[in-house]
Every structure is written in structure tokens, then in C-alpha cells.
């Protein structure tokens, strides 16, 4: 009896030490007791796939098509959503000015533009667009553009849109993260900031 309890206590201590407390950090994938249907053989978001030659699960749409519910990612001439100006900010080879007919500039659009601006642009351009965002402090060479500067104010709307889409100089393109409608909303909000700045 005594021996049994001694061994049992030892066993319990070993379990406790060996398994540790809940929430302990570990780096091996979590154990799954019955993994039957947990990981099914199908392509999932942002996952690699051995089925395709290039190893990528995400496929590009066939040229000239758009998946349902999506907008044209770039200003490809062959994608059928919206006017060309709406998609590219360009009329032919020139930046257009004014907002395309697909965009209705109203308080709701500006409000949406403000939210998007505060997510994607403030880290560098700052809340007020003056180019003094947090990251600007870490930036080495040329200063981040001051969006409320008269020079930028004079740029056509299409060029602001185009810059968000393709980037400029040190600024990267934001077409991947910001859909077209949001880019126009941000453009409208940048205009509002410029108006409010009094420059």
C-alpha cells in the first residue's frame, strides 16, 4: 500500500512536471487527438499546394476575367468593371481631374476615406497629412511628401489616385490592400485635408 502510493505520487509528479501548466509556450504544432477531418485535402487561403506546379495554392484569374465579387486589381484595359478613368485615374496618357461618375462625393464617402486614410497613410504621412507620421522619424532619405503642401494640392485628382495605386519614388503601391473604391474615398479625404489646412 505504502509503496503503491509512493509510486503513484511519483507518477503524478512526473505527469505534472512532464506536461507542465496550461499556457506554457511551445513551438511544435498542437496535438490533435482525432485528426480525422481536421485538415482536409483542399486548397485554402494563403496556403501552398503541391497540386500545382509552382507550389502556390492561390491561382491567378484567367486573363480577361475577374472572380465574382471582386474588382479589377490594376488598370488592366481588359477588365470590364467601371470606366477607364475610374480604374486608372488616367484619360489616355494624362492624369484626369475631378471624380469619376462612379464615385459620389458626400459625407459618407469622406468619412470612409478618413478611416481608410488613418489605416494606410497616417503611419508615414501623419494624421493631418503633413508628412510627419511616426515612420517618417525612422526614414533615412528624402522626406515623406507633405500632402497638404500647395504643390500636392495643385495635382489633379487622377494623379493622387494613381500614386496610391502605383506608388511613387520611395512610396510603395497600395493597390493590393486598398480596393479602387477606397482609393477614391482616400483621394477625396486628402482633398478635404488640403482644404482644411489653409495652405
Amino acid at each position, binding site marked *: *500500500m505504502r509503496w*503503491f*502510493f509512493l509510486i*503513484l505520487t511519483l*507518477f*503524478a509528479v512526473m*505527469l505534472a512536471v512532464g*506536461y507542465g501548466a*496550461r*499556457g*506554457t*509556450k*511551445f*513551438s511544435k*504544432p*498542437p*496535438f*490533435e*487527438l482525432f485528426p480525422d*477531418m*481536421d*485538415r*482536409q485535402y*483542399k486548397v*485554402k*487561403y*494563403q*496556403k*501552398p499546394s503541391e497540386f500545382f506546379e509552382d507550389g*502556390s495554392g492561390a491561382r491567378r484569374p484567367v486573363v480577361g476575367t475577374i472572380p465574382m465579387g471582386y474588382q479589377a486589381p490594376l488598370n488592366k484595359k481588359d477588365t470590364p468593371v467601371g470606366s477607364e478613368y475610374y480604374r486608372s485615374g488616367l484619360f489616355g496618357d494624362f492624369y484626369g481631374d475631378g471624380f469619376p461618375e462612379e464615385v459620389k462625393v458626400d459625407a459618407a464617402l469622406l468619412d470612409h476615406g478618413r478611416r481608410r486614410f*488613418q*489605416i*494606410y497613410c497616417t*503611419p508615414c504621412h501623419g494624421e493631418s497629412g503633413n508628412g510627419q507620421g*511616426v*515612420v517618417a522619424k*525612422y*526614414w*533615412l*532619405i528624402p522626406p515623406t511628401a507633405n500632402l497638404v503642401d500647395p504643390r500636392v494640392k495643385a495635382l489633379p485628382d487622377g494623379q493622387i489616385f494613381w500614386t496610391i495605386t502605383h506608388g511613387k519614388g*520611395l*512610396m*510603395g*503601391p497600395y493597390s*493590393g*490592400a*486598398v480596393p479602387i473604391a477606397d482609393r477614391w474615398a482616400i483621394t477625396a479625404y486628402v482633398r478635404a485635408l488640403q482644404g482644411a489646412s489653409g495652405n
Partner: protein
Amino acid sequence: MGNPFPRWTNWLPVQIVICLGALGTVVTAWVWYTWTPKYTRVGYQPNQPIPFDHTIHAGQVGMDCRYCHSFVENSAHSNVPNAQVCWNCHGPGKVKSDSPKLEPLRQAMDTSNSNYTGAPIRWVQIHETPDYAYFNHSAHVNRGVSCVECHGKVNEMPVVYHAKPLSMGFCLDCHRNVESHLRPLDEITNLDWEAHDLDKDQFYAYLAEKTGKPADDLKEADKNKELNARLVGARLKEMMNVNPPQDCAACHR
């Protein structure tokens, strides 16, 4: 005829029962403690190809989660950012562009790098629901559920780990008692938000604006109450008519 069994054996059956009981207790305790996602998942912290630090980016630099997890509001899946997003700030001549920690990023993006492959960075997924359960981010974050409810304080994690069990029980605990878990939609990505930070007047103005009806009667009813998570949640639930599903087919479809 003598007794073939010595006297002490009289107690043997009782002893066996006691021992088995004790053993059973230990084993049960062990199973109870470890055979649960609270044990098997919480704390999972895989090694990532780049030691990406949320305390720098979401904390110090103050980036919104959606700068990187940009489709969390529009899609079932919350994306991990592509290399271009990092390149915006860590490209040549920019922030820490020579850091050895960023070597995998340069391999993915920098065409002048001798090791350039152009292959995406292989981040290890931490939170992963089984494929038989359906989960949708946009259904939650657009209805007032913050990231912190399911992922913990990511903005304070130098390395992300699995902070909540995300088991079926965990999902249902909230679905059955959603009042204590809702917040105004502007605060979804503000993980440090507390209900009592809210300004009372602003909150009722927000309700009025969202519903398009004056919220004076609600304000009057809550006059003597402090704004706590439950009260705010209850008002928001009413306002947005939040009603999380509890039937099996909602998640196992």
C-alpha cells in the same frame, strides 16, 4: 483443513479498490487538465521565418491591424500581409533595410539580392480552426467583436502565440452571452480599449447616429449606471440587433 490464504489477504480487495480509485483519480485529473484545447493549443508559438514583432509595429509605430491584415473586414479569412507590405517600409534605403533579420524579405522582394527567389515568405499559421468548422472574420469584426477577444493582446506580444483556446466551448461561451463582448465599431482594432474609458455623451450620440433615432430615452434609463462592458454591450446588441447563431448548422455547414 487450514486456511490457504493468510490473514492479511482479507483486506486485499479493499486495498485494490482504493489503489485503483487513487490511480483513476490521478489519470482523470491528468486527462481533465491536458486533453483540452486550453492545454493543447494555448501557448503555441512557432518559430517564424522573420522574428516579426507586433509590439514594434502595432505598439511603438502605432499601425492599425488592418494596414497589414487588410481584408479582415471584408473576408472570412484574415490575411497575413504579403512581402510588398513589409517592403513599403523595409525596402532599400528605408527603415532597417540592412537588418539581418529581414533576409527572407530581401529574398522575396529584392531582385538585386544574390539570393533572390521571389517566393513568398512562409509564415507559420498559428490559429487554425479544423476544416469541419466554419469561421468568418468579417461576420465578427463588423458586428463589434474585437480581435482581442479571440487573439489576446497581440499588440503586447513580441512573438505571437495562441492566447485563447478557440474551442467550440469558447465560441459558444460568447455566442450565448454576447453582451459582455461587444464594443463600438471604431474600437475593434484598439486592443487596449476599456468600456469605462468611453465618454457617456459621446456613446449615446454614437448610438443615435447609428440608429438614426435619438437615444435620449436610453440615456435617461442608464443615468445612474456606470458604463461597463456589459451595459455598453447590451446597448450595442440592441442597436445592431446582434444575434449570434447557436445551432450546429451555423458552424458545421
